[in-house]
């Protein structure tokens, strides 16, 4: 189990990286933490001719907050994000979901952006990004564009990223008072990819009823997906037990989950309902609380 040969490029700044990506197009893969890519390369499920290692690119490791947005650069490690007081305070869902990713040594190398760009339909962080109504900041030699998380994931391990482009950051709006978030999952073994996971954000309106709600699922389709029927069911409700149950019951509507050795499609639909109920209950409780206790 050894990778095929490739050319290794280690750009020092973003322009150099973008030039290299432009030159090699679809032949190139970006290497950040490598905790998924190198695994695929070892199994020769990925054999890029060129690997562009962005770990030495200056300026990509910033984790910053301004104007109500939290921005994580392409080489911000998952462990850094998970332990960041800024993330804990302003995007606790990202921290909560992040703590479920593999194991500490993997997270200390793996990056948040890398997980998003890798677009594993079972992974936690893309799902959290989706539930947080996050954005993906994409750069190429011809400029920068921002893609809504809703539009970024297009299929299993595929995104709307074009050859020559790379993700330079992800951004999430900060979670404000009155909004509660939660991430729950079922994994067959601690640290494994979940069979199914649910990320939820719930906002309490001033009238005490549930306002904006976003529910995103992993392990429930070919990409991280929203449970829109469940969102609709909860929005405007009183957020009580019955409302949550009604929303949870609708969480599997329209899902076409993948099936693998860890669970059938039916089981994933079942888990989508169960976990949506649990995630919503927690998120609603947290929305009612002063702080988002994680």
């Amino acid at each position, binding site marked *: 189990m050894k990778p095929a040969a490739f050319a290794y490029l280690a750009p020092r700044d973003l322009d150099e990286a973008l030039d290299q990506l432009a030159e090699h197009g679809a032949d190139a893969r970006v290497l950040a933490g490598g905790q998924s890519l190198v695994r695929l390369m070892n*199994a020769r499920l990925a054999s890029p001719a060129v690997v562009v290692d962005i770990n030495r690119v200056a300026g990509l490791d910033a984790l910053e907050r301004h104007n109500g947005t939290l921005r994580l650069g392409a080489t911000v490690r998952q462990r850094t994000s998970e332990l960041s007081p800024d993330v804990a305070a302003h995007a606790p869902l990202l921290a909560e979901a992040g703590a479920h990713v593999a194991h500490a040594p993997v997270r200390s190398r793996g990056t948040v952006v890398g997980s998003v760009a890798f677009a594993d339909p079972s992974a936690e962080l893309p799902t959290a990004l989706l539930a947080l109504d996050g954005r993906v900041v994409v750069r190429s030699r011809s400029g920068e564009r921002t893609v809504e998380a809703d539009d970024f994931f297009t299929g299993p391990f595929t995104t709307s990223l074009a050859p020559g482009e790379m993700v330079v950051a992800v951004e999430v709006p900060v979670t404000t008072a009155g909004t509660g978030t939660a991430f729950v999952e079922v994994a067959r073994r601690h640290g494994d990819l979940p069979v199914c996971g649910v990320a939820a954000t719930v906002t309490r309106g001033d009238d005490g009823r549930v306002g904006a709600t976003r529910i995103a699922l992993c392990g429930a389709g070919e990409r991280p997906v929203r449970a829109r029927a469940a969102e609709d069911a909860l929005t405007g409700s009183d957020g009580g037990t019955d409302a949550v149950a009604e929303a949870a019951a609708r969480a599997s509507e329209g899902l076409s989950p993948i099936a693998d050795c860890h669970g059938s499609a039916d089981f994933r639909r079942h888990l989508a309902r169960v*976990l949506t109920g649990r995630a919503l209950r927690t998120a609603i409780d947290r929305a009612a609380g002063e702080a988002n206790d994680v």
Partner: protein
Amino acid sequence: MSTVEDRPTTATTGSPREGERRWIGRSVARKEDPKLLAGRATYVGDVMLPGMLYGAVLGSPHAHARIVSIDTSAAEAIPGVAAVLTGAQAAELVNPMPAFCAEPVPQTAVAIERVRYPGEAVAIVAATDRYIAEDACAAIRVEYEVLPAVVDPEAAMAADATRIHETLDSNVAFHRVLDFGDVEGDLARAHTIVRTRARWHRMCASPMETAGAVASWNPFDKSMTVYSNSNFHNFLPWAFAGMLGVSTNRMRMIPCAVGGSFGSKHFITKVLAIAGALTKATGKPVQYMEDRVDNIAANDNVGCDRIYDAELALAEDGEMLGLTLKIVDDYGAYFQFAHGQHGNAMAQPTGPYRIGSLRYDVSCVLTNKVQQGFFRGAGADPGNFVLERLVDKASEVMGIDRAEIRRRNFIAPEQFPFKTPPGNVYDSGNYAAVLDRALELAGIDDWRAEQERMRAEGRYLGIGLATCQERTGYNASEWWFLYDNPPLPATSTPESVKIDVDAMGGVRVEVGCPLWGNSPETVVSQVVAEEFGIDPADVSVTYADSTTGAMSAGPGGSRLTIMLSGATRGAARTIRDKMIRIAAHAMEMDPADVECVDGTFRAKGAPGTSMSMADIGMRAALFFHSTPEDESSGLVAVHTYDHPYSTPPSDDRKDMGAFYPMVSHACHIPIVEVDVETGLVTLRAYYAVNDCGTVMNPTLVEGQIVGGIVQGIGAALMEEYRYGEDGALDTPTFREYLMPSMHEVPEIVVEHLETPSPFTEYGVKGAGEGGRLVAPTAIASAVDDALKPLGVWVDELPMTPERVVNLVQGAGGGS
């Protein structure tokens, strides 16, 4: 109920109460540790020889296919590639893999013309490094004609099923029904018969180190040197030599440190054949290590894969009368080890109970999967699962408390040695004492109260219970006695040890077994220390290669501590006796008046006059004229310890004989919580009371038991090979084939009771497999107990979240 007429005369009677023991029974720290901790042990993957090449295997992507053509030209053209061999080419260099089966199921390390399981080797490569070897594999072009895959073992039995081997009339390679005792009578007499259809899926040993070999062929003197992690280098070296086409006296097999085996690396002929073919093709040393996918997909380390239709007949008072087991066992594509796992299971099918009759109906079925090998438990593991499930069911159906129904049926201490219906003999035990202690240790009443409290909250806590046997110390007859005309009716499982005391009194021991992750160095040092009264730290231990004449079946069947202590004691006594004679001669005394105490030889009861080990060592080495007349120079002894108590099977196979008579026993009580909505089962606590006779080294025995329990947690909750309908293996890496991590393991509390074996030196029994032999069924019992309000019955492992949810929903519970 049958009992043994007489104590066996061939047994070396143990002497557990002989004097005060200083080292047997103490938790001596492992002698093996420092080199392992320092990263200085040499595993086979660490062996580097000048000019060595690296092998890789191209495996079949199909479960079943005809190989139409193979084009290796592009692979051969890659710089650094030294050889590319197809099955036909490899067959010119090495012979088919030796097999224990009587049926004509030929197997080569590299497939010829047809592949029969996904991952089966189609071509092999040697190159200057592993990366290039894999480049070459990727460049080989194979054209396949895909054939229908036979995946379901019951469907495979149909007369019109696609045949796996044209040499056989059917995919049922072997079928036999054996009745022991009055089965029909017991069924007719029964007040209650409980039945189950149980499914035990295939799992694999998955040692952290895969199997591998470094083979070095010398074409000039036609000799072959092989480093490997095989266990049978001093047991069946001739079989390897035959496969490699080397004369037995020019074959040298060198054992390496082994990164775990759990039964999976006994024979590993495949890796030796691959490395052997490649070294013969290139004239250079070749290392072939399986990668993890090779190991899961194509190693011979898969355990049992059985469907049981079982019934237990009971009298009105709960007395167990008879047991019937109808078993379909999915052996995969080859039959190398025949039905050895059923021979093994025959050691204890009726468990610790006085069950009078047994019907054993076994069908060994071939399918398009990797063949079975051996994995800790070796056939007795599903047997324990099914029997204990039946006992729990009887308890439930008959309204007899599950501890009480067991107590009523246990073989009583005064009934040992006890002859079981199939013929195997149990040496000793006190099962009720183990059960009582386990209930006490677990604090059952507190857990029941906790269970009540949690149920009120809508949570499901379960308390498991299982009381199981662990047969230890096998004899080779288990491999073949299900045949009337076995191809190789061997009866030996020897273990030899060589001890020498040098001129300075230094004690050196050479063992024939390899270091497989257990503790042979520590065990023999403890025994030597016991016999000479020296410190185990002063004993040095080395491992014999196959040119030394050592005899060793090695670790397997939980035999090693039994056999090593017997062999070591025998060799130590021979040397000690000679030293006593030399000392007596020197001190002008009668040998009968000399004793060995604390490493010195002195007059009994008169410590004043004495000689040290070094005094006698030097005298034996250099002072021939100062030793007794009939003594040769030197202090060296080889002792081969054969099976301490075995009898052959009867010709009519009504009695399989005693072949696994050192029988340990355990009671496990796991505490689980089941999330009925997600199906997740969480272990909250785990209690185990074990009786493996005299405990040689409590810390090491506990290590074996805890490790086995955690493998059993894997068997209960996670581990399973899954194949798609097309025969594709869906679990080829550690991302799909799941083993427990630290997070899935609760605190495990282990205690020992000691009922010494009358058959062995010091009264030791084995303890290597017990954890895994008990935990799966105990955890199934706990899940049942948790879900009792829902009326759930577990008859299939592993209990994955999906299976648990299906059970709950099937019972009408959950959401």
